[in-house]
């Protein structure tokens, strides 16, 4: 077990492609960190640099107090689970799991004990004699995890381990991974582009975009206090709605839409947004904060009528798509709310949960 620190790490490929543009990240011992971001943002590259599969162009990576830049993967004492599992097709499950131990010259009975323990934990004892070809996707996934666990490495690395599974199995394996981490609290770096996976698994989530870290934080913190427009838009599903507004002072600080609609900023935020008076900004509001109206509204709630465009019932909630000031937005309403396309639906916007993005820097203020 060990902490991992990434210091000003850069990765460039030939032809001036900078996949990772100088990132800093401190990962505590036992911590479960998830790297999340859109495709091509450099998550895998970062993970592979930690693993030693990619050379580090600049900067340093430390594992457990040592710089590992020049240490080959086999001496880094890490284990990695790949998206396509990368099980050795010609070896049985047992041999797959034992391969690393055999190469490290563990005694035979020790190997057997370790493999059996890991197999028990993952509930794959009865599969030990099978070849990977004879396993289902979920079973292969378990074996791949088993292969990582037996070696009891300092760090676990996962690269989108669940994306080849169907939706149901994915949820199940997600829980499994969390359980394993609770049993064996090895420092873990987990890459995914699925934000639900990120939110549910992580102690801390690292949001990456275009080779830089946008924000690091606990899942709830990222949700409630995104620091950039990218994080605000990326975390949460359906995504946050963004509306162009102007901050105006009209008997109290308000945001004004292009069509003239004004919405009051809650009093406790007036100081925070005061300096931006007169500026063009972007208002961010999550679909769950644009809901159907209730009898008694809290303070800070703004009412508005929406002409329903598309209705998507999801079961536990219903998504309503409509336009505000010509911008397509989405609201999340109670499934019992009656609404049909073309009808007018009164909505309550909870301004207590608004976000204001400065357009020039894309930062949330």
């Amino acid at each position, binding site marked *: 077990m060990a902490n991992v620190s990434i210091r000003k790490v850069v990765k460039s*490929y030939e032809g001036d492609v900078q996949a990772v543009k100088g990132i800093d990240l401190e990962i505590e011992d036992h911590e479960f960190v998830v790297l999340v971001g859109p495709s091509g943002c450099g998550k895998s590259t970062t993970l592979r640099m930690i693993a030693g599969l990619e*050379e580090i162009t600049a900067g*340093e990576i430390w594992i457990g107090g040592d710089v590992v830049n020049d240490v080959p993967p086999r001496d880094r004492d890490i284990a990695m689970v790949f998206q396509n599992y990368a099980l050795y097709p010609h070896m049985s499950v047992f041999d797959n799991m034992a391969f690393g131990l055999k190469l490290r010259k563990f005694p035979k009975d020790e190997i057997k004990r370790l493999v059996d323990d890991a197999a028990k934990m993952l509930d794959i004892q009865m599969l030990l004699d099978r070849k990977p070809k004879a396993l289902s996707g979920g079973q292969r996934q378990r074996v791949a995890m088993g292969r990582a666990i037996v070696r009891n490495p300092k760090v676990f690395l996962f690269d989108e381990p669940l994306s080849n599974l169907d939706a149901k199995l994915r949820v199940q394996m997600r829980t499994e991974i969390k359980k394993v981490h609770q049993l064996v609290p090895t420092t873990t770096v987990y890459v995914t582009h699925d934000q639900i996976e990120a939110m549910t698994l992580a102690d801390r989530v690292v949001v990456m975009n275009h080779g830089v870290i946008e924000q690091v934080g606990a899942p709830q913190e990222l949700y409630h206090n995104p620091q950039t427009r990218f994080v605000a838009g990326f975390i949460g599903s359906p995504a946050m709605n963004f509306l162009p507004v102007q901050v105006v002072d009209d008997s109290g600080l308000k945001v004004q839409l292009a069509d003239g609609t004004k919405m009051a900023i809650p009093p406790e935020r007036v100081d925070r947004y005061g300096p931006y008076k007169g500026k063009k900004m972007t208002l961010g509001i999550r679909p769950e904060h644009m809901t159907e109206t209730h009898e008694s509204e809290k303070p800070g709630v703004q009412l508005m009528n929406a002409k329903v465009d598309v209705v998507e019932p999801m079961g536990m909630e219903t998504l309503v798509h409509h336009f505000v000031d010509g911008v397509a937005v989405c609201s999340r309403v109670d499934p019992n709310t009656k609404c049909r396309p073309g009808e007018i639906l009164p909505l309550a916007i909870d301004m207590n949960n608004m976000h204001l993005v400065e357009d020039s820097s894309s930062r949330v203020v």
Partner: protein
Amino acid sequence: MADGSTMVVGASATTPPAPRQGGTMKRLARRRSMAALALCAPLIALIICLKIYPTFYAIFLSMLDRKMNHFVGLDNFAYLLGRPSFHLVIFQSCLFAVTAVVMKAIIGFILAHLMHNIRGSSQRIWRGLLLVPWVIPLSLSTLTWWWLFDPSYSAFNWTLSWLGLPEVPFLGTVWNARISVIMVNTWFGAPFFMIMYLAALKSVPEQLYEAAAIDGASAWQRLIFITLPMMRNIILITVLYSLIVTFADFDIVRILTNGGPQDGTHLFATYAFAVGIQSGNIPRGASVSLFMFPVLATLAFFVLRDVLNRNKEVAT
């Protein structure tokens, strides 16, 4: 491979790199590519010493006189071009290669389709039986053909007279012998075409045929608009490759006719052998072989282009 250059880009973009790092990385990468090169060394040595060097050496040899003491320039080539028997060689080589390849391609195509019609486990057995000609070493099966053609004991002629037909001197006249060697080559090579085409047929997605069937295409239209275009590349590669091999063929003619009758069936390879090894005129033999070079190089160019194209196609 190019850590040196990317290093600079990365470093200038952010922090100065730790100095030792660059050196080690570069050294590691260099050591790795040295090891990679070392693993290829036997292959490279083989290609250079036994393919490239002999090619240039052949050019050098072809410009010497018979005793290999004097440089005679292009005299050997000029001499050959002036000889009627060499004209026959050129004619026969082209006739042999083109006719045999066309025959092989057509028979192979028919066989592949027939094989494709019957599916399931019996296909393996039929394929195995049809591949027998191609599995027996060519020199040995040619010997058997010779025995079948044998003037006094010919089993073919026995059959012909049994059927009440006149006997045929299979290897006795120039044109008969030409047809016979083409026949033997077709017999030997058609199975190769069959398996290449069969693999190609199998790689055509079934949905395409279903889609075409729904669009109302007849069997003939499916062949013209789906099968042939989908197989185009493989047909091309196989035909070009076979042209090379057939053009440079040696075994059949050498054993069946040894160039006769009246030098009418000599190919470049057998003629080069007769001139260079049997008559001991190494330079002239080398010149005969070199006459193949432009044709082979042209064909090889097209094969390579098609194979590389195909790789690109498959990769995307």
